[in-house]
């Protein structure tokens, strides 16, 4: 299934957001997530299915002004 992760096309094996984080080797507690510009809470990731073409954002703390 082709999805877009952080702006890049990705052929995902995972069918939900929680599994996708593991597939991509993200530490779940260190990131915040959104699908199609809608925030997804950490505890809702396992219940959030992924569909062809979904746009996933996985963000981490960064320096800011």
């Amino acid at each position: 299934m082709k999805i877009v992760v952080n702006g890049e096309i990705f052929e995902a094996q995972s069918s939900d957001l929680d599994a996708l984080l593991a597939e991509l080797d993200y530490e779940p507690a260190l990131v915040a997530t959104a699908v199609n510009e809608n925030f997804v809470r950490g505890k809702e990731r396992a219940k959030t299915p992924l569909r062809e073409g979904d746009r996933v954002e996985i963000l981490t703390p960064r320096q800011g002004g």
Partner: protein
Amino acid sequence: MDDFSAKNDLLHFYGVAVTSRLLVGTAQYPSPAILAAALRASHAEIVTVSLRREAGGGRAGESFWELIRSLGLRVLPNTAGCRTVKEAVATAQMARELFGTPWIKLEVIGEEDLLAPDVFGLVEAARILCDDGFQVFPYTTEDLVVAEKLLDAGCKVLMPWGAPIGSGRGLNNLFGLRAMRAHFPDIPLVIDAGLGAPSQAAQALELGYDAVLLNTAIARAGDPVAMARAFAAACDAGRTAFRALPMEPRDMAEPSTPVLGKAFT
């Protein structure tokens, strides 16, 4: 003189009391060590942070976040770079989960050349976020009508720009900023963006602004740690001067040395 010391002069943001009048950004520093040293030298109690994509599984972000936590600073996450209400709201929600704070520096950018706030989107996003329990610090202009709408939306702080982000031009619209201060005597007002030199920060505080927020002026200085110290001193000077009630300017000279008793008269 104790009456003028910073410890008796608290500034409140959403019920949180701080003494420092300087809020600083954490971006663009030459190294994490210089960032940490500059933050200490600034005496800032509040620093801005952001959320970004990262390839490394989140570990680089975590090391930055650990550094900030180790300094014992309160964080103000931003929605920098967001161009739509939807992006800004989603970014704020992600920031609240990751940083564990309801504070959000709300930026909705409407225009590339000046990175000017999209004030229509800003008001809309502020309303959504305030209704959702956020404590919003809106990056706005000195427009009083927009400011009133932000307060109606639930904002209890306003952050007008001094000049475009990263420009270092200081207070571009003194008349507008004075009017804003006079119009909102009881709302915490922070000059956010556009300051390049400590004298400009002092000027903002002399005008009665409650604080200033800046990043580039310190981070991109030749010696960020020394510049952080200079901004801290300037903010102290400006705030103390404001509280000491500066004299009114006048058009004509008036001798400061007594005329009475002068010889040869």
